[in-house]
């Protein structure tokens, strides 16, 4: 379905991609040649079919400027985006789960209220504003962390330092979502009969909280993150642009500015497929974590 919509988009793009790619000084013959190369001279349904079969075999066409296969170019940038999203997940889990659990355990306290309001706030504020402000405060003003790029290749520490701020911008909103969800499910689990049983067996409160309740309360986090990764993909585009990091988002953005359409469609297609796969994967992970679901596989 998504592929169909994509094709419609490319086909409907006003103007001639070949003309755009070649620039104003191109001759008619050059344009004709590129047309044939891109398959634009054939009837619509042939183009449509070609796009489908090609996409299925992993051939997304060639990029206009350097004539490299689109898939190669996109795949080259993909790891950067994935690392960024992984960093975002890292932040959101590392902050969201403890905050949510803490809020549930301190029910009715000022701490719970503050965590609740802060969660709503970080969910509400757009990630690119967070990105720009983080850049301004921590990189430009305080100079604690580097501002731009992904760091020296091969220098792990440098790369990690470059990852901190962008991934915070990607993950901060999800700290709020996860904290809220963990709080709610923790409160629910703490009411469960098996927690009462555990107390009646005299198990220490720490063991009950962390091993008996929290392990159950965090299970929905994985499903939530499955949804979240799609949104983080959006935030990652902004973070890549703000922090001038390489990645699929920046690739597609630059391709739009230079009207490099095969690259745009390729990038969008890959990320959308990725998005669907991630959701599927998240469901499978939930299955492997929860013994109640696991047995059904």
């Amino acid at each position, binding site marked *: 379905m998504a592929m169909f919509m994509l094709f419609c988009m490319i086909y409907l793009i006003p103007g001639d991609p070949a003309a755009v790619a070649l620039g104003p000084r191109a001759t008619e013959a050059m344009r004709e040649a590129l047309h044939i190369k891109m398959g634009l001279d054939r009837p619509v349904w042939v183009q449509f079919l070609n796009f489908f079969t090609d996409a299925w075999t992993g051939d997304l066409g060639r990029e206009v400027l350097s004539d490299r296969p689109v898939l190669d170019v996109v795949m080259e940038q993909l790891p950067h985006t994935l690392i960024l999203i992984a960093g975002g997940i890292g932040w959101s889990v590392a902050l969201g789960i403890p905050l949510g659990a803490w809020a549930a355990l301190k029910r009715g306290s000022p701490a719970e209220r503050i965590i609740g309001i802060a969660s709503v706030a970080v969910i509400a504020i757009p990630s690119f504003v967070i990105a720009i402000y983080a850049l301004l405060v921590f990189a430009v003003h305080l100079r604690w962390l580097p501002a731009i790029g992904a760091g020296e290749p091969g220098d792990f520490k440098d790369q990690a330092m470059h990852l901190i701020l962008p991934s915070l911008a990607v993950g901060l909103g999800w700290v709020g979502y996860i904290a809220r969800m963990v709080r709610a499910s923790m409160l629910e689990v703490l009411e*469960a*009969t*098996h927690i*009462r*049983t*555990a*107390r*009646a*067996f*005299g*198990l*220490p*409160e720490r*063991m009950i909280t962390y*091993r*008996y309740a929290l*392990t*159950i309360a965090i*299970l929905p986090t994985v499903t939530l993150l499955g949804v979240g990764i799609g949104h983080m993909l959006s935030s990652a585009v902004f973070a890549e642009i703000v922090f001038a990091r390489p990645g699929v988002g920046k690739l597609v953005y630059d391709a739009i500015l230079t009207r490099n359409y095969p690259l745009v469609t390729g990038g969008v297609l890959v990320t959308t497929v990725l998005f669907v796969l991630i959701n599927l994967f998240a469901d499978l992970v939930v299955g492997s974590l*929860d*013994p*109640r679901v696991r*047995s059904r596989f």
Partner: protein
Amino acid sequence: MSLPTVNLLTIRDLNVRFATERGELHALRDVGLDIGKERIVGIVGESGCGKSTLINAILGLLANNGRIDGGRILFNGRDLTRLDPKSMQALRGIEIATVFQDPMGALNPVISVGRQMRNIQYRSSLRNKEKDARSVAMLQRVRIPDAKQALHRFPHEFSGGMKQRIAIAMALMMEPALLIADEPTTALDATLEVATIDLLKDLQAGIGCSVLFISHHLGVIAELCDEVVVMYAGEVVERGSTSQVFNHPNHPYTARLLECDPARQAKRTRLLPTIPGEIPDLRHRPPGCIFASRCADHRSACQAPPPEIEVDNGHFARCIHARHHDENSRSRRP
């Protein structure tokens, strides 16, 4: 009064109150009961009569808005109402163990049975292998087939009856002095119920513990228990040996409860008898007899709190109509 030395648990004048949004709820009033060593005592009463509150008060697990407002819970001579949370926790699971009503929800769904049983023994100095061996032995005692394998399985892989037997195994693992069983058979079907009752009886005899058995099933109580405590709206209205209470009910509530038991219906009928009226609002507890509003026999004297009258040796009823057994033979009630 029974001699306190032979009692494992003695409760006297226990009052429990809950703070609610619409005023304070007086959940238990002047509750008193005795559980002798190696005795099985049953508590009967409708839902909402305070059975669960009583258990939680004994276990020191009242909800945050609840508090004990006077009275004593003496366990082996120690007053549990004055015990700090740490000592209370040390008691739970070792000296007092509990089996709850809902076998589906009583076990942690994401931790294996073996692991949960090992966790219960966290206070023991045994090594994990020895703990597991004890778990297996205990599971075998409750007749779980293939007990060794069962350790690696998760609660959802067992049937309801098996889960309840595992819960019983866990409760009795540390050989407690007192087992509290909160409607352990209510969620099970009739055949399983009988089997579970037999199992409990065997285990009780084997371990030599006392049992506080809570149920609204009179037949089960009659079958299993040595003594019965009848509760109504947070008060103990009658207590005594099972035969005393069941054969010579002295409180009108007990009498009506026995009449309403489906198992005691002589004729097949579609309409089960019920007690007219409803439980009074415990936020505004009437000062006099708690059952007065539903009692066919109430007098003006019932406006004052009725005394607990000993009608027979160890048989008490909280009703002004109660008479000593000898007088009772010339009773006014048919």
